[in-house]
């Protein structure tokens, strides 16, 4: 028997470390873009349009001579911020609804479950197109769209775990001790769901990055001239046959970012499975 806390140790694995390093690199180069390049992401130079990658412009220049590396780096900042807020929002809504779907009175439970089913059956890009055709796209709208697209998946995960926990004796024991239901849900059940929420956070973040890029690429996200990854690809799509770097390199940034997050997510999942197996061994 050990007396050291299991929460005190990190139990990192190679997936978490690799994903974490990649993601840290992306975050650093987005939020400290001047370390990577001094070029102005908005400064046009009509004397140097659509130049291929070179030492001066490592990612080349776009149709009005803007430095693509600077645009990708600066664009990442907004993309990451929006994806981050969207991820937190969708996890928050998903956790609350997921717990409601298990512990609320029957009519509420039923309604939440149906809402999850409907949401999961709905193609989210179609929904986003419908909504942005009715309201003018803005950062707030974009974030709300992301929450709308992501909450149901998190709710379903939280619900399935909470459902297992509900049947366990410690939840019944709390009821026998007269502990209020809300307190049981928040202090007894939610902490056991939490490790899965953390895994979900990484996966959701990856999905949100791609979703933001999709919407911006379709012209429903961040509006030009503000750079965002999807927006840069949209600018470059007319030149896709002649200037490959305008679409490929921002696409690569999206790929690396979501890959790093998926690696982190997988790593966290392995870690929590490992910790759980240790728990049941003892």
């Amino acid at each position: 028997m050990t007396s050291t806390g299991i929460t005190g140790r990190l139990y990192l694995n190679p997936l978490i470390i690799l994903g974490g390093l990649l993601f840290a690199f992306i975050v650093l180069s987005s939020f400290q873009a001047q370390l990577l390049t001094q070029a102005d992401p908005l400064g046009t130079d009509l004397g140097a349009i659509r130049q291929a990658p070179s030492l001066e412009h490592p990612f080349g220049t776009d149709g009005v001579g803007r430095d693509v590396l600077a645009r990708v780096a600066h664009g990442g900042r907004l993309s990451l911020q929006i994806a981050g807020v969207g991820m937190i929002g969708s996890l928050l809504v998903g956790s609350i609804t997921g717990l409601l779907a298990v512990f609320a009175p029957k009519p509420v439970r039923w309604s939440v479950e149906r809402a999850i089913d409907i949401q999961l059956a709905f193609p989210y890009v179609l929904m986003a197109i419908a909504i942005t055709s009715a309201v003018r796209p803005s950062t707030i709208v974009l974030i709300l769209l992301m929450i709308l697209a992501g909450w149901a998946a998190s709710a379903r995960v939280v619900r399935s775990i909470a459902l297992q926990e509900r049947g366990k004796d410690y939840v019944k024991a709390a009821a026998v001790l007269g502990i209020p239901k809300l307190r049981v849900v928040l202090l007894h059940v939610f902490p056991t769901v939490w490790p899965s929420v953390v895994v979900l956070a990484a996966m959701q973040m990856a999905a949100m990055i791609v979703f933001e890029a999709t919407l911006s690429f379709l012209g429903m996200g961040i509006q030009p001239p503000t750079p965002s990854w999807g927006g840069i690809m949209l600018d470059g799509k007319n030149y896709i046959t002649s200037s490959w770097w305008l679409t490929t390199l921002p696409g690569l940034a999206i790929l690396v970012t979501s890959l790093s997050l998926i690696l982190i997510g997988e790593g966290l999942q392995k870690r929590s499975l490992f910790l759980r197996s240790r728990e049941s061994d003892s």
Partner: protein
Amino acid sequence: MTPIIDAKNITKVFGASRSPHAARALNDVSVDVYPGETVGVVGESGSGKTTLARIMIGIESATKGQVYKDGHLLESRVDWRNLRLNVQYVFQDPFTALCPTMRIGAALAEPLSVHKKCPASERLGRVSEMLKKVGLHPDMARRLPVQLSGGQRQRVSLARALMLEPSVLICDEIVSGLDVSVQAQVLQLLVDLQKDLGISIVFISHDLRVIRYLCDRVYVMYKGEVVEQGKTGPIFENPSHQYTKNLLASIPGARHDKSTPVVQVTS
């Protein structure tokens, strides 16, 4: 004298009662518990012991029948909630009965703070005191359930149930998941606690030796019915029902009475 708990004519049917798949777990069972006594409920798996106990504390509701507390019929949710301040339950499986993410100290202090049993400053002291009472070191308060053995967890479950100073403790097969040596320790603890606190205990078990060691009175259950009840001594000396005779004959090391063949009872 009025019994503290009096469960009258309890019938429990799982599933829709008209359905051919409905399972009748309890059939017209009556059990009462008087202050300060230890009542045993014994029977094989599936005889309805746990269902009965869960109905007595209100985690399960009876299809038919009533439960009285000190002579008052329990009807509303408030009645049941008040009952639970007085009657506590210890679960069979010590590995699932404690919240895995909550430290022992917090788990023990929680009922005190929820029911405002004592000022916040005294809680820690009460927790240490209770841990000592169940034979654990007060330092255990800082641990998570994962860091405890099965016997230690069962002691913590007992301690938690006792935090509200109940007058009745329902123990559902609390030693069946433990090693034999640990079983004996926990049973001795139960005997000591009862002497110390003067509480009534409802002890549910399939183990007749444990029941004989512990209980003043015993109910023998078979297929959802009480087939025999009375003082432990006479029932063990002179069982009247065939099922009880078979149960007694099945105790390893018991004097095998040639006149009672070990056969299934036809119901």
